């Protein structure tokens, strides 16, 4: 299993008030064989195109695909170096639009923008939009996540 990513010395906990609409974050991560194996096992993927390279090639893919939900997980602002999150936040809503497959060996770049932030029934919400692209230039996934932010 992967060890958690090292935290840069200048890391800062981002509270609700630290976000502004339009603020942008960029993260880059590599789809390593270890990450692929972990996600297939931990999230229990069984779809042939995700676990069997031959089945994936028969469906027109280069090799077994990285599951979209996992690529989306790296769209979270917590994947941005230097950004720490206060403990206790959880997902409220999530939208995803798949744009193309990605594979082990790819390096993905995710550009995340703060779309909205608001308070509702005593809870704080931050809405972020993310676009993830492969290093070869093709788009992988667009996502919008609404997260309950700890106060």
């Amino acid at each position, binding site marked *: 299993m992967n060890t958690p990513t090292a935290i840069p010395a200048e890391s800062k906990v981002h509270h609700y008030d630290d976000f502004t609409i339009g603020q942008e974050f960029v993260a880059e991560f590599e789809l390593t064989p270890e990450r692929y194996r972990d996600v297939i096992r*931990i*999230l*229990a993927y069984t779809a042939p195109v995700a676990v069997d390279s031959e089945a994936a090639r028969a469906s027109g893919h280069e090799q077994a695909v990285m*599951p*979209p*939900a996992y690529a989306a*997980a790296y769209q979270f602002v917590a*994947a941005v170096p230097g950004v720490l999150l206060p403990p*206790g936040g959880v997902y409220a809503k999530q939208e995803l639009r798949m744009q*193309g497959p990605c594979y082990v060996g790819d390096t993905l770049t995710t550009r995340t923008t703060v779309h909205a932030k608001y308070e509702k029934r005593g809870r704080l919400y931050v809405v972020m939009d993310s676009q993830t692209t492969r290093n070869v230039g093709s788009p992988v996934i667009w996502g919008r996540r609404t997260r309950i932010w700890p106060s």
Partner: protein
Amino acid sequence: MAVTADTTTNESEAETVIEGTSREITQDLMVEYTDTLGFRNPIHYSGDFAGKSEYGGPIASGPFALALVDDLLLRHFPRSWLTSGALSVAYLAPVRPGATITGRVEVTGLAKSAPGSRVQLAVSCVTGEGTVVMAGTASVDVL
């Protein structure tokens, strides 16, 4: 109308409701998942921290439920899900360690689209006790 891999069909034996296998979400899995992301949120593993929260104890990350539906759609639309799939879900209830959850996809309609047709789907994830922990809609192009 029903759906088989990347195509539509009117055959009555084809599936209109696709239910995945059930799986237990253990505390160990919850910790391992946060480790793969490099973000250890104590709401997912710390009895002390999560016990004092509004959830009353550790809860699983949303992607555990999302992945069960994602896997079903990837299985049934191995080409088109990755290029044209769209998913919108709300997380409605917490998943506790030891809970068994099951992903479910139901065909709700078919609309014309540029490559042929676009299948409309209702998606959900339910615990063994019948609590809907995640629900929403999805759509995907088919030939």
